[in-house]
């Protein structure tokens, strides 16, 4: 597949701080590529350098065949950008904003049909201040599509949305993908990346820790199987038996709820045998998630980090 973005040895320094520390990656045409990591990992900075909003300290970036240093304007014609928590004009209605932004490009799509695509056609005459958070986010996405771009950048598109609104947005992102556009998004929701992204790069402290197809990252985990259970009759003996097979974690919050990460099918069988003896009220055998990948790589839980930040 042809590369639409190629980043090589990108470095961005703020004083002594390396916000982005020598990273390289590429994005293929038509895929959804996710940059994952906590706040401050360097995701947004990386994105904004590719979008031409910030200057790189070092490195070479080619977007759609143009070097970012010389071809910024040609690139801007062909990309659509949704910024993290950006607002739009307060005194223009949605339709007016779309047609104004459309006028900035050589070619632009019809505002009404874009509004229709995300079920906002009856809000065409509303101001941004008078629509809900989910509607705002949907509007923000179509605003980035106004020039019918080849690549769409979405910076944390679902942050702050309720679960229903988030799922609605996922559908929209899928719709955009099905139009053949390449999507680059950042998120700190692992579950979201797992649902949406063909490939992900996990970033931490300005570096890329790992990168690859979402499912193969999970498959290549050292312990790709997970059993979670809840049992009242759990005792130390059972736990000791289980610890011989894999990592046992007590699930935070719930009483008598545990999770075990295991390496092989044989270990899974052994663990299940032990567990049947204590008649668990609830038992779930499954594959590991992207979150487990993140924890294995960084040794920390991303949601916890978010809360501490």
């Amino acid at each position, binding site marked *: 597949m042809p590369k639409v973005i190629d980043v090589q040895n990108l470095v961005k320094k703020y004083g002594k701080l390396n916000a982005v520390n020598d990273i390289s990656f590429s994005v293929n045409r038509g895929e959804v590529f996710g940059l994952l990591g906590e706040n401050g990992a360097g995701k947004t900075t990386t994105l904004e350098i590719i979008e031409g909003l910030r200057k790189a300290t070092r490195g070479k970036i080619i977007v759609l065949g143009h070097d970012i240093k010389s071809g910024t304007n040609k690139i801007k014609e062909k990309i659509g950008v949704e910024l993290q928590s950006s607002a739009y004009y*307060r005194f223009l209605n949605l339709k007016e904003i779309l047609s104004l932004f459309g006028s900035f490009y050589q070619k632009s799509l019809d505002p009404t049909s874009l509004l229709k695509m995300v079920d906002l056609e009856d809000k065409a005459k509303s101001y941004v201040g008078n629509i809900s958070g989910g509607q705002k986010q949907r509007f923000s996405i179509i605003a980035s599509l106004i020039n019918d771009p080849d690549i769409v950048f979405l910076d944390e598109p679902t942050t702050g949305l309720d679960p229903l609104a988030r799922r609605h947005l996922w559908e929209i992102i899928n719709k955009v993908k099905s139009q053949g556009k390449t999507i680059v998004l950042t998120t700190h929701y692992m579950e979201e990346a797992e649902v949406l992204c063909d490939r992900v790069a996990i970033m931490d402290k300005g570096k890329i820790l790992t990168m690859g197809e979402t499912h193969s990252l999970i498959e290549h985990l050292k312990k790709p199987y997970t059993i979670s259970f809840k049992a009242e009759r759990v005792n130390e003996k059972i736990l000791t038996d289980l610890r011989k097979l894999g990592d046992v974690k007590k699930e935070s919050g719930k009483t008598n709820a545990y999770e075990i990460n295991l390496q092989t099918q044989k270990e899974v069988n052994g663990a299940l045998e032990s567990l049947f003896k204590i008649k668990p009220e609830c038992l779930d055998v499954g594959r590991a998630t992207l979150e487990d990948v993140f924890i294995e790589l960084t040794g920390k839980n991303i949601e916890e980090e978010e809360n501490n930040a």
Partner: protein
Amino acid sequence: MLKLFFADLKMLARNRQSLFWSLMFPLMFTAIFGLFFGRSNNIGGSIGLINKSNSEVAQNYQKALTEAKILEIKNYDDVNIAKKNLGKNQIGAVIEIPEGFGEKKPNAPTQIKIYEDVASTQVTALVTGFSEKFFTALNYQIQNVKPNFGYAEEKTNTKTLSYFDFVLAGVLGLALMNSSIIGISVSMSKYREDKILKRIMTTPVKTWKFVLAEVLSRLTINLVQVSIILTVGVFGFNAHIYGNLFILLLMALLGGVLFQLIGFVVASFSKTADAAEGMATAITIPMMFLAGVFFPIDALPKWLYSFVQYLPLAPLLRILRGVALEAKPIWDNPINLYIVFGWIIIMLILAISRFRLTEE
């Protein structure tokens, strides 16, 4: 770019806060000063007149006093009521023409009586001056004498001008200053806070086009603003405009450009819209008083005047007043234009070097 210009205009018209600063605030000043000083035509005060004589002299005196239009005349029948009102400062002096004054018979009274009030020396001076002149002329006429010496009067300023005319030109400058400095600095900071400027930067639109559309739309609003203030001032409160309207509007736009540049500089120094508003107010309010919107600043202490005469608003007001009130050509006193252009260049350099649509 045209689309951006019209969008900017639309937003300005929909933004109540910006409309307040550009229209309501200056109109409020126009109305207040207009009500106090606007309608009277150089009348120095009012007097009470009690005329009990039907003689030709008495009637001529009253007629001349009325036609001189130097004072408003209120007629009374009872001298005591008039004197009471004088005590209450409702009138500045009382003239009593006694019964039989000026009649051609013996023992007829030959003097009128003027009751003065120490609080209104100006009215007193006008009344006594007028009466002196009137009776001297009358005496000469009766004695058939021609005066040997006299004086010829020549007014340097033949136009009728009032304090309100002075203030109205000041209010023009005030309106331009407030709407431009506060308007630009607050809206630009807000755009930056809301990341609208950053969002614009992700599109291929050129920065200069974005800024130019903003400036031009505001200059258009300035034209509307100045026209409305002038219309209300002239037709509502009898203000006088003697100069060329086109040049006046042109000079107003020059002021608009200068103040918008100051707005951009303020926006480049302030991190939030609130900070910008505070900073802009801290600049405009003192300038409103020190640059001579409401009173001539040459009355200020010399050390202060030597400084405030160079504030950006001060030379602009001198130009606006020169054009509006005295119909002087703008190059009559080019130093004012030089100061305005000097400020424009300074602010332009600051704005270009400091104002950014987005951080690096």
